[in-house]
């Protein structure tokens, strides 16, 4: 399966492939350009032989100070037809650059993409609703980024509330 898939992707999507890093991993993986992500995912899903019909996982990594570009969005696809074979697509992306959404192909991608946007600050174009999912709407910053302060500037909104409560309180009586 590994060889077949590698050959298929290398011949069919040669222009989309990016040079791969040597990673010690238990998964087969391909780095691809972000523009061609929807086409690659759709083709692999529709192909009767490969049938990667299950989006297994979707997340992102912040490589701050280690690699360029800064982020990588990682997709894990599974093919139930081929003995539940899993493989990974990696999409390198710089700061402020949007990645095309695949929520039109897999409805399952809706929340994970919003989560990545919320916690890592990578936005997805053509997503039906690119809003925060987990953190409150007025939260400042993206907490899973490596440069996010651990004490959290996002605490401001709580402190602000405490201040108003105490300021308005009359403590003289």
């Amino acid at each position, binding site marked *: 399966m590994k060889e077949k898939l590698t050959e298929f992707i290398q011949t069919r999507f040669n222009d989309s492939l990016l040079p791969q890093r040597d990673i010690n991993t238990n998964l087969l993986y391909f780095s691809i350009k972000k523009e061609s992500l929807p086409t690659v995912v759709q083709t692999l899903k529709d192909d009767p032989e490969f049938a990667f019909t299950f989006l*297994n*996982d979707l997340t992102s990594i912040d490589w701050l100070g280690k690699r360029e570009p800064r982020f990588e969005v990682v997709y894990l696809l599974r093919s139930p037809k081929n003995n539940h074979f899993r493989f990974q697509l990696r999409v390198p992306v710089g700061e402020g650059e949007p990645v095309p959404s695949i929520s039109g192909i897999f409805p*399952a991608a809706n*929340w994970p993409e919003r989560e990545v946007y919320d916690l890592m600050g990578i936005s997805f174009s053509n997503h039906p609703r690119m809003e925060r999912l987990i953190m409150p709407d007025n939260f400042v910053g993206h907490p899973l980024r490596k440069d996010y302060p651990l004490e959290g500037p996002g605490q401001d909104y709580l402190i602000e*509330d405490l201040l108003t409560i105490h300021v308005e309180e009359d403590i003289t009586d």
Partner: protein
Amino acid sequence: MVMYEKTAEHFGQKFKDLPEGHLLVNLGPSHPATHGILQNVIQIDGERVVDTESVIGYVHRCFEKLGERYDYNQFLVCTDRMNYVSTPLNNIGWILTVEKMMQIQVPDRVTYVRMIISELSRIMDHIICNGIMGVDLGAFSGLLHLFHHRENIYQILEKLTGARLTTTFCRVGGMERDIYPEFQTEIKLILKGLKPALDEFEELLIRNKIFNERTKGIGGISAERAIAYGFSGPNLRAAGVPWDVRKNDPYMFYDKVDFDIPVGEDGSALDRTLVRMEEMRQSMRIIEQLIDGIPEGPYHADVPHTFLPPKDRVYNNMEELIYHFKIIMHGVKVPQGEYYHATEAANGELGFYVVSEGEKSPWRVHVRRPCFWYYQAFPEMVKGGLLADTIATMSSLNVIAGELDC
């Protein structure tokens, strides 16, 4: 407080042009049926659900960020707090991932005990799900009837790990301590009592006419949609898809034991309950095959720098004392690499994706938690149904807030 106001304002905007006669109802965040803290903003027309929005994030503790600060053994306590109904399953999932990365082969004794504890936890989780579902629909005695058996399992965990809820079971390379002498006898006793109790529970609750009519054909999802939404575990199997990580991608000794995968037909609330009932029986079958065969031997792998040396060696040997300090201060050494390892938790596929740069803590930890993937299908599952049916659908999905937000 601020958060709640924000979301209310937000949904006010989304649903601002409500047709005449339509109402907005807040189901949760603090409602007996929204296990943990979940908010569903439901637009209703009479008793019919027109549209819903789910709000999550109320118990978010940013475990993935904590994982980047803690060492590999310390992160174990975070996994305890994910699915708090069956903690050992999360613990084992995490430990297996780290062991895979370090290429540690644990002794058979450890794997046997881990499998037995996994299956007991699955039973524990399903008891809560099915029992509480009865409570949500107005039947309290079913839960009480089974809770006694769940308590028995808790006592085993307490004796084995020292804690009931947050077990922090296992360590990288083995277990924290060996099993106690009566371990096997006690588990056999539990199984003996549990078997008739499950039958009685089925008679009492599932064959009950009211329960049956309130769950049959309610909150159903087709196999195709379930796969599209990334369902896994009992919820996917109830839709008729026989996928189970224990069979598809076997870990530990699951390929060496006999068990069946129960499947449902239409993925309705009743099917999900029935699949869970049958899974409990299958788990008991697995335990019965393992319980008498626990091999003798050490309870941790003989790999230096991973496991705390025994105390007598620490007190009498300088080298061992240094190892002891090194493990406490710097944790275990995981080579550079990226791994994804999936296990079948009670709710479905629980995957840990870990990026290591060879340092004390992982560079990135991501948890693929089953709840997160199927809860997003909730609006689709309840649309067009009755408001009362949303309760049955939600209970049967077994959404655990701690796992959902992580």
